């Protein structure tokens, strides 16, 4: 193989290497990071008292109770 052929082959290999691109298609289900449910929290010092972090029904009851604080007509 002559040096000229080798140079052409090397140039072709380099040129083709530029064709390699990273995949840009979106993965199935999207690229979003998974979010965790709101009742799962490690205490950051701001967690309201009256419910148990990690317990869904306890969180649900807490949110409903908290919403009733906006109700002027609720029995106190």
């Amino acid at each position: 193989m002559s040096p000229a052929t080798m140079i052409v082959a090397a140039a072709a290999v380099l040129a083709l290497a530029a064709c390699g691109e990273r995949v840009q298609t979106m993965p199935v289900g999207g690229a979003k990071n998974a979010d965790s449910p709101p009742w799962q929290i490690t205490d950051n010092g701001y967690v309201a008292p009256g419910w148990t972090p990690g317990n869904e029904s306890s969180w649900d009851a807490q949110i409903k109770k908290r919403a009733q604080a906006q109700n002027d007509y609720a029995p106190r």
Partner: protein
Amino acid sequence: MARMKFICDAERCIECNGCVTACKAENDVPWGVNRRRVVTLNDGVPGERSISVACMHCSDAPCMAVCPVDCFYRTAEGVVLHDKDICIGCGYCSYACPFGAPQFPSNGAFGLRGKMDKCTFCAGGPEANGSQAEYEKYGRNRLAEGKLPACAEMCSTKALLGGDGDVVADILRTRVLNRGKGSEVWGWGTAYGKPTSGQPGAQPQEGKKS
């Protein structure tokens, strides 16, 4: 399972902007961005009414439909959130939203449009609940702390209601029944739409605003 909703009682809103301030302070919202705004209808005219508007966390959100990179997601509680790691700041959501909820910080010398910012119902984002990373990108995750959004809880006249849709709808309904008026400007039907004919639960139209 709670389905989170906001509703503003136009008869009670006194345009104090306390909700706007509470939101900005609680979530460290950047300059030039207001996740919540108070809109006054017929300003200066006797009988003017004000309502506090932010993301309504639509059940069929147009922002989600138009996002070219699919950065939005809806939580099981019905809160529409987005992933700032994916947002490219194209602004399509801003054009699609009828409430003007998506906002873009422009802090560059040439008016560069940053990543979209909007009301999160104080539910943070995809980062770990209550983490510093979540706070820096999206603000406080009050829902995970067992609280309701700061704007609603700080409202001095309890005009802005936030929380489980059933509960807040009940509160508003009780008020309207007790005072005999008050959902003409901004009732549940105006905010979230009425059942369309042919859909389950559709009611016959009577030409009356809810």
